[in-house]
């Protein structure tokens, strides 16, 4: 098995390939760097930053960015606006205005955050011209692809490694992961789901598909006496407070899993599970008391850890 871990997209990216030809991982790392250069909101020369500065005018973008933004619209539509990449102003107002590794863990209240800008504008006004390969944002709208880009990157890189001839692939972009084929030991890939209170909540055995997890306990920072996090409720423009501590979603594609995990968290219980099902996904949710809640499809497959072992 070939494996490497590289820092990218503000997190650690793990590339695992079974029986991959030599050079496949190197090429995949290059593709990852290329995607980050196109999509980072922290790089002034990225396609996303260019788009955010040119609101109201068409901007030529790469096929990768065009597809990412079409997927973002699809995710926004299918989640009823719970996934909304137009929360960038709200995210910055909450204090997340630079790469997370450069974010101070605590800021004085007066300095750390601006007033929330209110509800996010949504993607209704975006124009994607697929033939001309241009995207036009309405004036006043800026995008943060952070809630979908890592997942779609996992999808692209997994497909790349599969096309290169790998018999099995796992691409893990900071927890948003996509697998295909067989694991190194044969059979399905084992995907651990950590419990927010410590230890492991569950292990997924996944042959083909993707998983992603959202939690307000990650990417947090302090503003005055208030704890802020990166999961913005598009309706309020502020970090969301729901009945869910962690939402993990399993589905066919990582972009969809990432979007659905965010939407499930924002929906809270009991709506999160039926929402995941409507999105064609399975979900494992941990509530504020640490209890697990599973969609019906996962319940049918669930076993206790000792079942079937010697």
């Amino acid at each position, binding site marked *: 098995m070939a494996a490497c871990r590289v820092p990218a997209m503000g997190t650690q990216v793990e590339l695992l390939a079974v029986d991959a030809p030599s050079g496949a991982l190197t090429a995949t790392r290059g593709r990852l760097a290329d995607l980050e250069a196109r999509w980072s909101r922290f790089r002034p020369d990225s396609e996303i930053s260019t788009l955010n500065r040119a609101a109201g005018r068409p901007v030529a973008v790469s096929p*990768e960015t065009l597809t990412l933004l079409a997927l973002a619209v699809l995710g926004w539509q299918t989640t009823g606006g719970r996934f909304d990449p137009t929360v960038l102003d709200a995210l910055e107002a909450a204090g997340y205005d630079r790469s997370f590794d450069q974010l101070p863990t605590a800021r004085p209240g007066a300095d750390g955050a601006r007033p929330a800008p209110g509800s996010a504008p949504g993607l209704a006004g975006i124009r994607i011209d697929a033939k001309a390969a241009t995207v036009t944002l309405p004036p006043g709208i800026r995008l943060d692809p952070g809630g979908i880009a890592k997942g779609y990157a996992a999808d692209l890189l997994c497909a790349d490694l599969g096309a290169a001839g790998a018999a099995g692939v796992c691409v893990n972009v900071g927890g948003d992961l996509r697998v295909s084929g067989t694991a190194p030991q044969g059979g399905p890939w084992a995907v651990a789901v950590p419990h927010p209170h410590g230890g492991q909540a569950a292990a997924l055995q996944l042959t083909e598909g993707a*998983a992603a997890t959202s939690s307000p306990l990650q990417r947090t920072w302090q503003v005055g006496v208030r704890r802020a996090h990166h999961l913005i409720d598009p309706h309020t423009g502020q970090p969301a407070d729901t009945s869910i501590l962690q939402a993990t979603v399993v589905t066919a594609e990582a972009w969809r899993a990432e979007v659905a995990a965010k939407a499930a968290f924002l929906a809270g219980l009991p709506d999160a599970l039926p929402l995941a099902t409507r999105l064609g996904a399975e979900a494992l949710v941990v509530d504020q008391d640490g209890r697990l809640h599973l969609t019906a499809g996962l319940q049918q497959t669930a076993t206790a850890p000792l079942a079937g072992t010697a």
Partner: protein
Amino acid sequence: MRAETTMTSRRRHPAQASRILATGLSAATLLGIVAVLGAQPPADTPEEPAGIAPARVRVVIGDPGANPPARRATARQTARRATARRPDTSTRPS
């Protein structure tokens, strides 16, 4: 410029006529993109579930790794495991 990936070798999908990449995406997602772009899907587009069939994912509740091993590992095995970097296949929150 990177070559756009074809969905199948025989049929041309409307997404291919544009700059949309089909790479790594299901037919259901491509149909969704086509709808977003305002194009009409072809009549012969195959139907495919949007998600993943439950039979292809199983969940083991708890931590299987917390179980006592059936056989005691040798000192050499223990040392090798301690020094080997384990691949991270966890879906930690992002």
